[in-house]
């Protein structure tokens, strides 16, 4: 299924969602991307990616945590699903496997 493939930005946001655990919503994720990955991203892009990940089944969401700054709106909070966890692990182990096969001379360390 095409949905089980995952893009680079999707992976990054999925990871950050996982790391933020119980406070993963649009603005928080955007700021985290800016700080951790040091790249600028618009809020609408974050939302679009989150929606796509949810459609692929890697995220679930709920509404909670209205605050004064948010004009009384609740946060749209995201949690990584089991599927999401699996796809992250697969991608990580794939990288590790490939890393292991790289001979040390390849990077000029020999």
């Amino acid at each position, binding site marked *: 299924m095409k949905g089980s493939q995952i893009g680079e930005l999707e992976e990054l946001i999925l990871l950050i969602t996982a790391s933020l655990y119980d406070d993963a919503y649009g*603005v928080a994720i955007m700021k985290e991307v800016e700080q951790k990955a040091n790249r600028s991203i618009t*809020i*609408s892009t974050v939302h679009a990616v989150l*929606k796509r990940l949810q459609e692929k089944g890697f995220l679930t969401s709920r*509404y909670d945590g209205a605050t004064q700054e*948010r004009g009384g*709106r609740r946060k749209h909070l995201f949690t990584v699903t089991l599927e999401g966890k699996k796809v992250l692990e697969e991608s990580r182990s794939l990288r590790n496997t490939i890393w292991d096969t790289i001979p040390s001379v390849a990077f000029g360390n020999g």
Partner: protein
Amino acid sequence: MVDHWLLRWLERFCDPILWEGIQGDLEELYSYETDTIGPDKAKHRMIRRSIGFFRPAFYHKQTQLKNSIETMLRNNLIITIRNLRKHKGYSAINLLGLAIGMAAGFLILQYVAFELSYDDFHVNKDNIYRMRLDRTNAGEIRSQWAAGAAGVGQDIAQDFPEVKRYTRMTKSYADISYNQEYYQVDDPYYVSEDFFMMFTVPLISGVDSLVLRDPYTVVLSQSLAERIFKGEDPVGKEIKMSDRNDMLVTGVFQDLPENSHMKFDLLYSFETYVKLTSEEVRTAWQWDGFLTYIELYPGTDVADLDAKLPQWILDTHGEELAEYNAGMKFYLQPLDDIHLISNYRGEIKPTGNKTATYFLAIVGLFVLVIAWINYINLTTARSLQRAKEVGIRKTLGSLRRQLIGQFIFESSFLNLIALVIATLIVLYFFPYFNAFAGKSVAYTWPAQPEFWLGLGGIFLTGIALSGFYPAIVMSGFKPLVVLRGSFARSKSGNRLRQGLVVVQFFASIVLITGTFIVYQQMSYLRSQELGVRIDQTLIIETPNFQSDSVYASRYSVFENLVESESFVKNITESTATPGSTPGWNAGAIRLVTQPEEESNQYRVVGMDANFIDFYELDMVAGRSFDESYGAEEENVIMSERAVKLAGINSPEEIINQKLFFWGDTFNIVGVVKDYRQESPKAEYDALIFRYFEHPGGFYSIDLSGNDMRNIISTVESHWSQAYANKPFNYYFLDDHYNEQYKSEVRFGSIFGLFSGLAIFVACLGLFGLASYMTSLRLKEVSIRKVLGAANDNLWLLLTTDFLKLVGVSILLSIPLTYYLMGEWLENFATRIGLNVWLFLIPAVILVVIALATVSYHTLRVIFTNPSENLKYE
């Protein structure tokens, strides 16, 4: 919380499930940024950010709404079709009226668009002007030329730096042969070398700047090249001009499109003309018959150039002109104006008429408007029948918006069907119409995008207008009033309907009166005393020979052969025949006793001694030419108008005076009564007749008998016996004469046809409306009848309302018709005056038609047995 229209739009756009999270995030970022960078910048960023959310990912798919629109449309369609079927008569009238109106409107407008498209295809059209010439004598206009002085183009290009290049051209009368075979070629021209550089006439072979540079070269049109050389490459071959000169074919050009004011198959280089005549032609200002076109550099102020011309004429030719008390004035005609605006001596082909074209556009619009008004009237008049439907729908919860939607849907649907029918009509009648309108087969649909856009615009507006008003009226009914049963027609609706009927009949009466006046004018022209006999006359162009003596000997052979035939009554030879302006125009002519500044211009006809008898011209003084007097070459005859122009009061007085004509002196021996040399449209011309034993030009043969085909073939066999294979070009004089007002006759018939259609459509509407109106008063009429009303009183009661409307329309139409038709009649030298009858007769016709239409219904109601209508009470 920020309020901005973009956010409100976004809310509508966004999937509601996502909206709260998105809105919250936007708010959070805004309040954070308000603290850090200030509220103004924060707001600005927020708006920018919100724009990012207008992407497909967040779009809220309104599946439910889509379904409901489909259901609504289907429901609308069903109701529309049911309504159409229920009232088949009305529907048919409505559809037929609309379809005819649209088809007629389309046909006319495409014709008008075509007339307006003339010469649009020239790339440089905005910079090309034709130099038209007026010649004056003692301040009075003597002749108006499209084809003016020979030398002016070359001189203006030399003297004014803003003139980029010029082209001059003049007609050739030579015949063409190739391998001893003669070819009939319409209007060959000599043109100067820049022709193909200036005009967008693509060359299929040859180089635009070279093909016309040298003497004795010729360029052919594609179709003529095909006709002569039949597939061979013509370039480099030679054709013979008048059996004398070998002309080298240097190029082939694409045939000119129909919408060009020019038309020719063959162009000789102008240098050829210089060789055949004299070097003087390059600079001659007193030698007319040369069309001159100039191309200006882009951005030149034309008005400025135009203003400099009078002084230029004075500076360069002032003295020479003053000698003859003459004047010249040039007009710069924009290239794309020539077809519709210009109609002067020496036009290449018959021009169009601007007034006539705009009249037709008005007629087209009238027909369309009448059709749409029909629709509005019939629909609103019938709204009563649908009032209950509206009432019930409203009670069941229909919104007004939905009802308007329903009615607009209905009218769009009807208009669309009408449009389909109209398209079929147009496709079917297109070729007939264009033949009728005098367009050649090569003619196709107008290509301008403006035309199609405009047409689309007109149709959309019409559909919207004719749909909108009935929709508003019908959706506005109040359910309670309607369903209680005491619903009466609104006064205002009635008045509007009456207003619209007035507009319809206004348009109809303008058209009827217009048609009537056009026909009256045409029959007036035809009934004019021509002063010349034109029936049963065969005209043959004389052949060209290398020397006059050869011609003279051959001619007597031909003449003897022809005269021996029993069907030939008479034969004469002349340089011009009635039915066209004589090509020979001569200036600087005066009586010997007069000073040079009293010289004038005359048209000259060379003729043999037979001409005046032959054409049954009347002599008012002196005598006609007669060879028995001897030395007739030294005598001339003048027309009455020419005598007047020479400043002599009575014809008798001028007899035996001496005329000074280009260095020679002639004795005036006779005066001919004025006759219509050119056409009844034109003024009498000032003519001088000169005697030649063999003038050359045309033979006129007076025939008796009916079997024209046989007669012509006999004449042709004599022709070949006398002249071998010289081209035999003939026509009948009355046909040729009638050509002069072919365009008016055509205009009259187009006008008549579409006026007829407009009236038919208007009457369809009136028929429907009358049928409905009388049906409303059915009971009233029956009760009146029971109470003893007389039939004629009842008829008056039912028809006066309509008659009043017709009367108002007629009164309103008179000023417009008077103005428009006055303008049109200005085109004619001899014309009818606009009198009362011209307006009264069409008015009576219209009243009779309207009465007949309405009476069909009223009489039916009156003659029904009252018990039929009252039995249910």
